[in-house]
């Protein structure tokens, strides 16, 4: 079989060995933050620093989305004055950040995680509860 599949296409056929869930870290309140503790199941697959860097970056992005600053206040007041119709033409700051996060995760997956047989799922698809890391069976996924 000389078919060349991209990794995206091959993934559905790869077997899922395990899933690891990175839970939320509530020590700073209800702000969306994830625990940076390195799970033991990933020890053989990826560098601890690398993983913690990813999670830390995600935490920063979420913190920025929920930040209470002048920008968010202005946006809030403007929205209130226009009876929230302004959001028909404009995206909220939070939504913009979520798009940025999605792009970042995609990028991380392509560059770092997929070559190691891992897949990060965007937390928004899990209700911002967990970062789901799917571990695929080590079946020489790289072409």
């Amino acid at each position, binding site marked *: 079989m000389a078919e060349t599949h991209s990794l995206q296409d091959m*993934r*559905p*056929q*790869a*077997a*899922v060995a395990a*899933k*690891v*869930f990175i*839970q*939320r870290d*509530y*020590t*700073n*309140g*209800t702000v969306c933050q994830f625990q940076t503790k390195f799970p033991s199941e990933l020890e053989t697959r990826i560098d601890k620093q690398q993983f913690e860097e990813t999670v830390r970056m995600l935490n920063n992005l979420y913190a920025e*989305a*929920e*930040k*209470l600053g002048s920008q*968010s*206040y202005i*946006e*809030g*007041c403007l*929205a*209130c004055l226009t*009876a*929230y119709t302004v959001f028909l033409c404009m995206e*909220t*700051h*939070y*939504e913009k950040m*979520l798009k940025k996060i999605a792009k970042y995760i995609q990028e991380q997956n392509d560059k770092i995680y997929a070559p190691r047989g891992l897949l990060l799922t965007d937390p*928004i*698809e*899990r*209700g*911002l*509860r*967990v970062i*789901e890391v*799917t571990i*695929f069976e080590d079946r020489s996924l790289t072409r």
Partner: protein
Amino acid sequence: MHLGVSESMRECEYSQISTRSSTPMETPYKKRTPKKRKWEAFPGRNKFYCDGRIMMAKQTGVFYLTLVLILVTCGLFFTFDCPYLAQQLTPIIPVIGGVLFLFVLGTLLRTSFSDPGVLPRATSDEAADLERQIDVANGSTGYRPPPRTKEVVINGQTVKLKYCFTCKIFRPPRASHCSLCDNCVERFDHHCPWVGNCVGRRNYRFFYMFILSLSFLTIFIFAFVITHIILSSHRNGFLKALKDSPASVLEVVVCFFSVWSIVGLSGFHTYLISSNQTTNEDIKGSWSSKRGKDNYNPYSHGNIFTNCCAALCGPLPPSLIDRRGFVQSDTPQLASPTNGITMYGATQSQQSHMCDQDQCIQSTKFVLQAAATPLLQQQSSEPVILTASPENGVSLPGRTSLALGGPCTSLPLGQPTPPTSTPSLSCHEATDMLPIHGHTHNHSHPLQEPVAHHHFLTPEEVPSPPGMLHCGSPLGHSHTVQAGFYNPASQDSLHEDSVRGLVKLSSV
């Protein structure tokens, strides 16, 4: 050959079994069926309209009443009083009235129709992972599962995170499970039947603006209708003035009774916003200094201004439940199709299947608990609704009717907290704060049902000001026990649920 025949027979059997196990990959028919939207497979007890754009609670009768009251009163005001006032005083009056009316309506609809901040339930993988962690942490225990809590230190205060058995997650701080909607809601304030929805993180500001603007509107209408009557009576005499505009009398009556409750509620919520607390927390006295010297609110930003800004103008998080997305199996399937249902496919249909199983488990727990603790809840003299036994579920209507005129039921094993402030009269708080049995896991489906539907004020209670309401201060909970509106249906569904559960049990 005999062997060949039997082998081929076995092969036939094997292939028969494999085709009966439905994997989406095998049955091309499934690909042709239209994809379902996620709201159609939503596990909570919500109603959706406009193809998932609008989301409300299951019982919306009181919401329509609210709408009718507002529309009728304002309609009468604009039709009968405004022409006179515009003529005699100034035409700005109807303009301001109109603006207020539109604002009230807008915020009401926004509160009622938006997602309050529902937390989607855990996928089966997540739930399994959590269960594994809990088992590891607790070790194997006896027949009774240990209470599932996690302690977290937030800004110096220890907060207990409870495990939600329905949603299979550890609830984030300030989240609570609404038994009426059967969802965990972030920053849960209360379930408001007047608005027909829960009030949580995503719609609290709209709710606050609704009650604030409604207070202004009510006072505005009240003031100007009285002005109208007074001006008219200067000319024609009081009785003739009343006869000329009977609508004004009706408006005065409605506004008079509304003003007390709504202005009171606005004041209460202003206090809550400025101290960054939820109704839930205030009623429980979670951050009250009476609990301890070092007890303070870890979520407060320190000063009133920042708290208000954060609550009203802070960033609005998007909905976590993708209502209008399409249901799809998003996880990789196993390669060989004859392996049947994949282990890691967490599709919505599987989730709803899990919910059925979950219901079976809940019913089992329910029955076991019922068998174990039949008389615990019948200590107090007042008829208590919160009994565990499913048999009592059917007989509840009779018992609740006894309590109609009486004070609130006291929770047998609960801790009624002294009211720290005016309880919100018309709205229902999370039943999370009702420690039934004293267990932390008090969310089993059938158990919640009898509790859930008794927390409404029936419309007969609507106009009564706080002083007259029975469910006032003594116990600090504003639950009224009603045999009214919603019981028959709820009892039927409760009965149905327990029967279903027991049938499943017996079939196992």
